[in-house]
């Protein structure tokens, strides 16, 4: 019998642990982890195939069709090829960080999936088991934490390559991820506000039993749309895939990677797509919730899983669709969208949700306030745009500026700027 303090915050208050942690429970936990890992890996392989095939269909091409039936084994073949390729490490690279980065990219993707409830509760030999690797009380915060950690993999990969295109790609990527994380977090807050818990399981339970209890409807459709935009940017999926804009950056942050390390990045990218689809389903579409045909035996076990898979698959389809349909944004448009549109929108909607939770009158008042604030903000943005030209002429120079040539260094840094207040100038 072990009862470490760590267990409860991490694994949550699952009923499984109520009778203490024996070997059976341990085995169950280990099996859960292994199954989740295997399923995720398999899903990634299928997803890559699916994406290539679907894009081909949308572009009237055939796509992979040689390895296995309908080209299903294509990804596997690619993986084997990558595995046997030469492992290149650039000369200019920072070797330790270069090797570390792929794992930092993969790990968050794996960890996020642990809090996704994929089904209901099954009972094996008297032990109730949740179909979810872990249900920590801070569930959804873990998702946010991990998605903020995911930045490191990208950032360090680009930096450690010791080459300029990867660096540019990684700076773009990390700026993008940080920018959209705020909007992402704020939409999640709206969900948490109406649920009253951070636990993913509770979030799912609160959205049953009817489909109009889904947060998709309860919160008004807007947070869902905002969340989708934010999450797409967070994943650097098209149309927000500036980080690997081939025409500008060669291949983005992972240009210098090859062989297995490259495969890890590729894996992480698709794994992120899958887990984030699962998170969308959990937060807004009731997770495994759906009508269960009771007359079929054991349907209450596999039907929720099926519902979950169907919903997740729908989002995967949407991601591929977006990629096929939408052109890439320009960088400044991306930042404008993130900071000037998405964040105010999410904030406003959060206020509305909070007010309507309180009472209808509050909601009405806040709605008016939000509209007024929206007008003011629009006006302020317009004024700000116009003022950028004025700024050029705000400060006329004092005196003439003649510089001795030896002082003109590039780039001008703090060290260049003469004596400053430290000196008495007692010359």
């Amino acid at each position: 019998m072990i009862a470490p303090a760590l267990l409860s915050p991490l694994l949550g208050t699952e009923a499984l642990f109520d009778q203490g942690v024996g070997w059976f429970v341990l085995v169950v936990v280990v099996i859960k982890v292994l199954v989740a890992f295997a399923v995720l890996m398999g899903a990634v392989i299928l997803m890559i195939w699916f994406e290539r095939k679907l894009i081909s269909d949308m572009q009237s091409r055939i796509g992979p069709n040689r390895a296995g039936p309908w080209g299903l084994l294509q990804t596997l073949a690619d993986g084997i090829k990558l595995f046997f390729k030469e492992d290149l490490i650039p000369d200019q690279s920072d070797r330790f960080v270069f090797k570390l980065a792929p794992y930092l990219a993969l790990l968050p993707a794996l960890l996020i999936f642990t809090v996704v409830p994929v089904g209901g509760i099954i009972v094996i030999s008297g032990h109730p088991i949740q179909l979810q690797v872990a249900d920590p009380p801070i569930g959804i915060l873990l998702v946010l934490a991990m998605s903020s950690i995911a930045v490191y993999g990208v950032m360090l990969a680009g930096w450690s390559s010791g080459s300029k295109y990867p660096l540019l790609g990684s700076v773009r990527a990390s700026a993008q991820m940080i920018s959209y994380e705020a909007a992402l977090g704020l939409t999640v807050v709206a969900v948490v506000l109406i649920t009253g818990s951070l636990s993913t399981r509770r979030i799912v339970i609160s959205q049953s039993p009817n489909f109009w209890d889904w947060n998709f409807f309860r919160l008004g459709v807007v947070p869902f749309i905002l969340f989708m935009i934010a999450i797409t940017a967070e994943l650097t999926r098209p149309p927000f895939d500036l980080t690997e804009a081939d025409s500008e950056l060669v291949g983005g942050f992972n240009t210098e990677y090859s062989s297995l390390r490259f495969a890890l990045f590729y894996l992480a990218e698709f794994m992120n797509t899958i887990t984030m689809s699962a998170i969308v389903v959990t937060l807004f579409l009731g997770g495994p919730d759906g009508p269960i045909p009771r007359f079929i035996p054991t349907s209450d076990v596999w039907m929720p899983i099926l519902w979950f898979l169907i919903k997740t698959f729908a989002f995967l389809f949407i991601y591929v669709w977006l990629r096929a349909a939408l052109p890439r944004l320009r960088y400044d448009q991306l930042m404008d969208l993130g900071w000037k549109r998405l964040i105010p929108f999410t904030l406003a909607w959060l206020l509305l949700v909070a007010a309507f939770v309180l009472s209808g009158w509050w909601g009405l008042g806040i709605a008016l306030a939000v509209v007024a604030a929206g007008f003011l903000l629009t006006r302020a943005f317009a004024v700000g745009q116009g003022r950028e030209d004025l700024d050029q002429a705000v400060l006329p120079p004092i005196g003439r500026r003649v510089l001795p040539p030896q002082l003109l260094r590039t780039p001008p840094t703090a060290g260049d700027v003469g004596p400053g207040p430290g000196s008495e100038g007692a010359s």
Partner: protein
Amino acid sequence: MSGILTAAVHPTIPDLITFIVAGLMVLAGAVGVILSRNPVHSALSLVLTLFGIAVLFIAQQAEFLAAVQVIVYAGAIVVLFLFVIMFLGVDKRENIESDPLRGQRPLAVVLMVVVLAAVIALGVNAHWATGVHHLVGRTGTPASNTARLGRSVFTTYLFAFEATAGLLVIAVVGAVVLARRPPESTGEADLEESEALGTGSDADGELGDGSAAALPEAAAAADESAEGMAPAGSEPA
């Protein structure tokens, strides 16, 4: 699952292992921050430290704090550090042979030893290092831990919570004010200005030979004043 107290008083083996591992993470990270010659490695060591602290928080059943620790510190602050390091291109190995303040390193070591000794002495001598032997209330189950935090934010610390809004406003306004540099005010103008300030005589910006000669001198004066205390700068040139 008992509260903090029992866990702290009677640590189980896994608790102990967790603590040791997390403690080593924290310490290794801290040492790495100051010993790495590359700023990026320093920043990464800092992440290690922050993670270790997050683990310690979890061991104390403060899982909300742990999550916030990761989101805010590792996810935002250190990322910004890295961002700045990469943008400014200071990610070169630092030359730490030249010491701008002579004798600061031995002094720092001495200071560190003193502080460490003080902390260890505090820990060893005091059976109960603090005056209160228990928290005001039990933390209860992990789920209500977050709830308690939320509750205290809206009751005991309501005013602090609201005042934080003022802090955020000023931080944003300040950042914008500092960042909105008019284009022509970079470099040259600054130099001329500081020149005028430094010597009090070159107001017209005619930086002839005299002021050019004065510059190194003034820089030396700046060095001096940085070295000791302010009066050094006021010595006769």
